[in-house]
């Protein structure tokens, strides 16, 4: 071998020829996967409809239910199979676009671990049962239940499904509908309600010239990612808007920012007040600044703020100037701010910036809410599960219905949801998958996939246009013993009020009747209701009447933001970061989404612990080393990922893994940071302060290669992406 010298050029030449011949040989090698002759069946239509052409797809409009944003979709159906989902251009939410989770909707449908028949608990174990037997059991067990001893816990829900849940609870005289969502914006909504008089104001990024986002990952996980991505595209086109992202760990949005500012975790509100103070001091604040507010702001001098937040004083001044120079602006707050123990105050400080900058009425407009309150979105948060778990633990629930939610997995460990649920007399879980919650049920009712079911959806965040988005089956159900959610809810109603619901054979009939009877639903003077209904389904969305609010600006709720305390035993703050993809863990059973690398760290599958190089050096840890992250509630172990996009005081463990059930792709993979959250509750909203847990980190005596895309984080001296010095950037991009 030593006598055989190859220079690089020769090597490439050899590779080139070798490559070509290999390719040609490869071209004639039949693969063994699908090319076997006579192995696959091909069944012709018996008697096809005139318009059916095998191989040619037909597109149907429906609604994505992969997250609660409510994007409209088009599904391509070929030979009776749904094959591909795309955005519906008619939808004002997503204007023809989808995100990767939306695309993966087909995997939720074809997932091999779906439940295919009802299960009933017998002698401690769940055993297959028929629908008749399961529904009979429910009728028996719920016959004497009443009042608030009956509860329904669901994921975010809207439209006619929300109406049905409400109606079922009404038959018991119960008002206990809890809505649980791990990824939520309820603190933002509470603050908007209190300071603007409108909980869901419309955010016009397209009108903004600059955005200052405190951890709002609006391109990834905040409220309506696809909607904001389309808005963001407008914001960046024309005269390019300036995006400044302040957060303790780089999010997908942070990765796109012109300036990314690492802030000491938990002090974002202090920084916001510092900027507010700077605006007032430099005389840039719009409108009258109330004396009480001036008093609150007084102590947030640059020096103090820089000290608390770790963001230098001159930088704070530059951010302030950028907002003034690039008006109108838009200031947002996301999960790391909302999830602090001071979440409400911190978000109030952020909202105050919008008021001082004169954004209200400019880039922030009043919401146009769907006119019918019963159908409006219940977007939920973590408070619902907390209240539910307390009631359950105190044995105050005889019957619990759970739909489209997996609280046993999603609720933080301190809620002890599994134990709490053991104290509920009778639990009915409606789900598509054998998830952690289903395993605790007395009766499990297997649901249709979103692609098989009917529904209507009203988005919590609608971008200013109220619409009702239709969900219609794209194909026949794969499993004959599964049922639609609406059908199940109707069965429950029929058990209790047979006469009232006798007219509706199924949920389809109910939906069609309800929609046709909505005054705005069918165009005036339209005699042929069937034609109108079909046209609606074809379009997929119905623009409806909206109640447009009026802002009542109020800064009286703005208060000092408490600093986060240091802790010697637990020196770091835990960031249970979410990402577009696995979301809150509901998509951990989708191989496509498991395989899609985390947008920042590029890690695939599994869990990992993100830390700053300074932190890693202190701990003697390098990427791939196993570490133990310990809070007062417990600990978890995973491999470290060392990178610069995180504050040295923060430790991030992504959400989404650590399932103990949930099918072959999710079960037993990685760890769930929610298992070790401290029981910290944001006092003014009652939400779990998910970003307020302090942890310590220890290095373990084990290391392995971390599986992630790309081998290097640097360009290794090659000018693959050209860069300019910060000083030049500041001159050209106006960061003052």
């Amino acid at each position: 071998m030593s006598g055989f010298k190859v220079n690089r050029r020769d090597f490439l030449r050899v590779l080139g020829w070798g490559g070509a011949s290999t390719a040609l040989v490869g071209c004639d090698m039949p693969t063994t996967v699908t090319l076997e002759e006579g192995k696959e069946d091909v069944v012709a239509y018996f008697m096809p409809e005139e318009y059916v052409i095998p191989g040619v797809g037909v597109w149907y409009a429906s609604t994505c239910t992969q997250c609660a944003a409510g994007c409209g979709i088009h599904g391509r159906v070929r030979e009776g199979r749904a094959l591909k989902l795309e955005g519906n251009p008619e939808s004002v939410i997503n204007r023809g676009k989808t995100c990767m989770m939306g695309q993966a909707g087909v995997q939720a449908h074809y997932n091999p671990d779906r439940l295919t028949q009802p299960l009933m608990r017998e002698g401690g174990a769940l055993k297959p049962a028929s629908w008749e037997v399961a529904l009979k059991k429910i009728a028996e067990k719920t016959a004497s239940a009443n009042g608030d001893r009956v509860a329904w816990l669901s994921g975010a829900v809207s439209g006619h499904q929300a109406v049905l849940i409400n109606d079922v609870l009404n038959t018991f005289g119960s008002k206990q509908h809890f809505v649980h969502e791990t990824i939520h914006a309820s603190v933002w909504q509470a603050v908007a309600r209190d300071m603007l008089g409108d909980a869901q104001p419309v955010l016009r990024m397209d009108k903004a010239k600059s955005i200052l986002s405190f951890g709002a990952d609006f391109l990834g996980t905040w409220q309506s990612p696809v909607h904001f991505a389309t808005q963001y595209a407008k914001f960046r086109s024309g005269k390019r808007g300036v995006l400044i992202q302040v957060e303790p760990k780089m999010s997908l949005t942070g990765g796109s920012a012109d300036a990314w500012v690492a802030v000491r975790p938990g002090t974002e509100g202090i920084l916001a007040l510092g900027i507010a103070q700077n605006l007032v001091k430099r005389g840039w604040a719009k409108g009258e600044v109330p004396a009480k507010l001036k008093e609150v702001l007084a102590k947030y001098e640059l020096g103090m703020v820089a000290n608390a937040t770790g963001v230098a004083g001159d930088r704070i001044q530059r951010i302030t100037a950028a907002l003034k120079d690039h008006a109108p602006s838009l200031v947002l707050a996301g999960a790391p701010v909302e999830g602090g123990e001071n979440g409400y105050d911190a978000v109030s400080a952020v909202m105050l910036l919008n008021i001082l900058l004169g954004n209200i009425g400019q880039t922030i407009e009043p919401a146009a809410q769907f006119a019918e309150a019963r159908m409006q979105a219940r977007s939920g948060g973590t408070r619902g599960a907390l209240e539910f778990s307390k009631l359950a633990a105190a044995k105050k629930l005889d019957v619990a219905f759970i739909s489209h939610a997996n609280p046993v997995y999603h609720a933080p460990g301190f809620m002890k949801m599994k134990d709490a649920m053991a104290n509920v007399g009778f639990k009915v879980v409606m789900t598509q998958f054998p998830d952690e919650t289903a395993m605790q049920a007395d009766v499990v009712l297997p649901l249709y996939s979103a692609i098989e079911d009917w529904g209507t959806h009203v988005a919590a965040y609608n971008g200013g246009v109220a619409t009702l988005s239709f969900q219609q089956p794209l194909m026949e159900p794969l499993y004959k013993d599964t049922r639609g959610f609406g059908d199940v809810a109707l069965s429950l109603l029929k058990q209790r009020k047979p006469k009232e619901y006798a007219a509706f054979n199924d949920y389809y009939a109910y939906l069609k009747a309800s929609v046709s009877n909505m005054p705005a639903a069918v165009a005036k003077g339209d005699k042929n209701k069937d034609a109108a209904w079909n046209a609606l389904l074809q379009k997929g969305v119905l623009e409806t009447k909206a109640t447009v609010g009026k802002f009542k600006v109020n800064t009286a709720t703005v208060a000092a933001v408490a600093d986060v305390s240091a802790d010697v035993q637990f020196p770091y703050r835990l960031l249970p970061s979410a990402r577009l993809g696995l979301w809150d863990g509901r998509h951990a059973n989708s191989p496509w989404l498991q395989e899609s690398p985390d947008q920042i760290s590029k890690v695939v599958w599994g869990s990992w612990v993100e830390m700053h190089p300074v932190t890693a050096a202190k701990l003697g840890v390098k990427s791939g080393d196993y570490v133990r992250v310990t809070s007062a509630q417990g600990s978890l172990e995973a491999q470290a990922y060392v990178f610069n996009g995180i504050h040295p005081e923060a430790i991030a463990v992504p959400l989404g893994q650590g399932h103990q059930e949930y099918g072959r792709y999710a079960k037993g993979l990685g760890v769930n940071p929610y298992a070790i959250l401290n029981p910290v509750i944001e006092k003014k909203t009652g939400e779990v302060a998910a970003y307020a847990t302090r942890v310590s980190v220890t290095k373990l005596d084990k290391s392995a290669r971390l599986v992630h895309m790309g081998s290097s984080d640097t360009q290794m001296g090659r000018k693959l992406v050209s860069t300019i010095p910060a000083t030049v950037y500041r001159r050209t991009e106006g960061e003052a």
Partner: protein
Amino acid sequence: MFYKHVCKLVLPPVLMFVSLLLISGAPARAELAVPPGVTPPVGTHAGEDVPQPIEFPHDIHVNINKINCMYCHTYARRSKVAGIPPTSKCMGCHKMIATDKPRIQKLTEYFTKKESPKWKKVHDVPDFVHFSHERHIKKFVFDADLPVENVEQVCGLCHGEIKAMTVAKKNKPLTMGFCRRCHEANGGPGDCWKCHK
């Protein structure tokens, strides 16, 4: 022009019935011609015998009765797949024709049960290959102004001489090399994404 081609496809069942009565004995085997101006793809494949639920005789249909390929595989010119004829289409003729033959009786059984036979796939390409019959028929038949009754020459480029077989047997490799050689020789597209999308 397209309409003209379509009209030629429709062979009235009665005519087929008559031709069946006229012809007896084994058909003479004619070599399959190559469409004019086309360089056929090079490559052969020794296909397996694939047992089918009904031993469908291509030879009787094509060689003896001269039924056009696209009469039964009617989607070939409209879709990526050529399509297996619907059972109802078979019965369109076989309600009357050859009703005493065991194979037809078996077919009638399926039809009465409102079922289609589970045929076994003989020709296939992997899922990551987007092959369209429609594009190929357009190029080699309609755009080339090939008389539509000669379509079997085009089908034969990839399927071989089906009219000499009873049930179909794969006799071309249908590999990427096979496809590429033909694309190169006949000016087909060379971009990866044309087939892999």
